[in-house]
């Protein structure tokens, strides 16, 4: 019987980091010194630290890869991939093995914060929605999220509900009530999420959100927007005065409740333009804005009679 020596080597470097509890594909080569084709023969995977086999026997797939299952714990994990010995057709292929270590890391998490009302009146309560997502799509129901203010004080807590937000794959969410600060201005909060009791290890994360805190509105601003040439009212025009906003209805009218102050009144509707106008709010006020139609600048616009 002839004896051939063999060797296993990585044909591409193993990834430096792998999320704990996941499978990693390793590109490897199994060589015979005499050039025999060995790729259809089984390999044995052991690890980490020569614990029970994690993959038992496996074969190199058509892409030259084997799958390595990383344990669901964080930190370096050592594996060995072993071949043989194997005897067939009067040839003995000697055993060989490959040792490698991968660094298992926690799964990432991320957050979304939405339905944040703005502006909010100082000192009043308001609600926001907060969602948390595991990069491994882990079920996060029941986990706590915390809201902290700019002084790093926890001002509210929530507990993620049982089912993901509609339209998402695994965004677990809750509605959280907060108290607006006593001072007017742009306020910032952070959402913090630190999952600890999951089967797979996860990193925590945070996300920031802002809201404009204002004095209680006391005056009614009525804005009418008309087209400059035809004097026709324009619907669905967005009205902005700093943090305050409104939109025109079919008659071109928008009403916005405002506190006293000096504001830049701006409008927006695609296809129209009008310069900003300064307004002083000391009482109820009505203004009229003339908007001009922007010319179509596309020379290939679809056009029919």
């Amino acid at each position, binding site marked *: 019987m002839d004896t051939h020596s063999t060797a296993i080597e990585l044909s591409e470097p193993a990834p430096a980091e792998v999320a704990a509890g996941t499978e990693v594909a390793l590109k490897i080569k199994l060589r015979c010194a005499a050039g025999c084709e060995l790729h259809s023969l089984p390999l044995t995977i052991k690890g980490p630290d020569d614990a029970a086999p994690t993959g038992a026997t496996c074969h190199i797939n058509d892409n030259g890869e084997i799958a390595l299952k990383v344990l669901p714990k964080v930190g370096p994990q050592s594996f060995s991939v072993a071949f043989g010995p194997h005897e067939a057709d009067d040839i003995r292929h000697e055993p060989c093995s490959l040792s490698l270590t991968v660094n298992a890391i926690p799964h990432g998490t991320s957050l979304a914060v939405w339905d944040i009302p703005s502006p909010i009146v100082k000192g009043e309560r308001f609600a926001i929605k907060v969602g948390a997502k595991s990069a491994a799509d882990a079920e996060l129901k029941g986990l706590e999220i915390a809201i902290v203010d700019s002084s790093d004080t926890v001002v509210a807590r929530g507990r993620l509900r049982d089912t993901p937000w509609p339209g998402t794959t695994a*965004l677990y969410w809750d509605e959280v009530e907060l108290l607006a600060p006593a001072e007017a201005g*742009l306020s910032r909060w952070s959402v913090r999420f630190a999952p600890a009791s999951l089967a797979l290890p996860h990193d925590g994360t945070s996300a920031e959100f802002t809201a404009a805190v204002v004095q209680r509105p006391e005056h009614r601003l009525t804005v009418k927007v008309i087209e400059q040439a035809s004097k026709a009212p324009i619907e669905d025009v967005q009205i*902005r005065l700093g943090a305050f906003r409104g939109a025109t209805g079919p008659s071109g009218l928008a009403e916005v409740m405002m506190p006293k102050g000096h504001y830049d009144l701006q409008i927006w509707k*695609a296809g129209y333009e009008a310069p900003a106008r300064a307004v002083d709010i000391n009482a109820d006020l009505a203004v009229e804005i003339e908007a001009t139609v922007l010319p179509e600048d596309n020379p290939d616009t679809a056009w029919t009679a």
Partner: protein
Amino acid sequence: MGTQDRGDKGGAAEALSRRSFLSKGAAAGVGAAALTGAAATEARAEIKWDHTADIVIIGAGVSGLAAAITARDHGVSVIAVDENYDIGGRGILSGGRLHLGGGNAMQQKHGIKDTADQVYADWVRFDANAARYSDRDLVRVFADENVATYNFLVENGVEFIDRMIGPEAASTIPRTFVTVEWHVPSELIAPGRNRNGSGLVRRLEISARKKGAQIFLRHKMTKIIREQENSRRVIGITTMNGSNTVNIQARKGIIIATGGHTGNVNFRRTFDPRLTEEYQQACEPWVHQGADGELAAMELGASLWATAAQTREAGAAITKTRHIGCRWGYSSLVYQPESPMFRLARATGLTVEDWQNVIFVNQFGKRFWNEVDGSYNFFAACMAWHGDKSKLNGGGPIWAIFDADGAAREKWNTKPPNVDPDGYFFSADTIAELAGKIRNPYQKQAMPGAVLQETVARYNSFVTAGVDADFKKPTPLYKIEKPPFYVAWSTPILHDTLTGLHTNTNGEVMDIRGEVIQGLYCAGESQGGFAQHGLARCLTFGRVAARHAAGRTS
């Protein structure tokens, strides 16, 4: 010339490029290298001509069809070849807007007074970017031929919508009118999209065939053959029909009507090095604009002309992607599922009505400009160096980021066939996760999720305050906050070819020494010198070139 069933790159231009001087560097673009890299010697006596005609036209688009009809009107035989499986070139996908004046019958009917002199005066205006870089000798020809070109269209059955538009571009009076869309849906490339140019090219095709023009489809020009090595006279072309080589002799002239260079990355970078591979072009995948005519002529020593027009920063040489989330989102062109191109285009895109509903980020997840701007300042910002150390030219992919509320305001259905999830559209539950979803051949590194999250949070704070402190987007209106979140391909898309081969007023191609290359003509977007957008210059110079070629001695 166009293509179907072709991959990302390749085609005539690439084939020529690989074996020609341009593969050694785009800087040789104006033809300086053309003489030293002259085409290989042909043993002329050994050429077996498979076909012969007085005039051979390369490209059966707008200028090629106009030239074919004109040739027949002057009593000479003509063969037009096109690499595509159908006629029309970019014209069949155009809006059909014709910019012709001079006092034509349409203008007269609508009470618009115009003259050739006024056309000329308008299109040499120093105060109009669209006009100031043009060759005034060519503009004069164009102006003088406006009425004749209009009459030519009428005589050849082209129908118009009875309404004048304008004034547009450099014109000071209305000169634009629109052809009637072709009435057979199965003979359209973009049905249901008012691509009225189909009515122009289909009518011209019918007329050309009726008058005896031969049109060879799926014939891809690979070479223009000259009489002898270093000769300034051309005598035919070589084409490939499938795997068959087909040589076509031209007794009087060859007209290059191949439609421009926008699809040839190496060639277009001659004029603007920023225009790297990530910028797609309008009318792909129907036509490629591979510069094959320009390159074949430059191998014979032809020169480019009036190249400033290509970078004049006016009009639609570069455009904002209007239909996001697909690879080719040129403003007025959408391939619906019933289009024969849909299999290649893969998605219609999501049509943006209001740019307030998205923010743009670069490949690193950072905002870089005011999203509602569509000026050349915006394009410059897109093409700016954003910090990619492995790619200094071009700005890399530009992505639109929006949320569930933005999609609802735009009434978008974010599923195929509206979007192309194979590289051009992705969704996720959070912004940070969204960045990691992007897999696109032009996105060379992963977009950092933390950066994108910070970008969106900062923008949302601008919406809260009502002021965009970074890029002065007017009245930033909508936060990007409600899941799910979306990222859609929004990289600017290229359109017009505005420069090309140097010709004289007869459309004869000139070499780099200012001498005529005998028998070689050029018309349409491959012709340099008159950078008016659209169909009119293509029709006019197609007629002019064919008329002169027909009068040449064989």
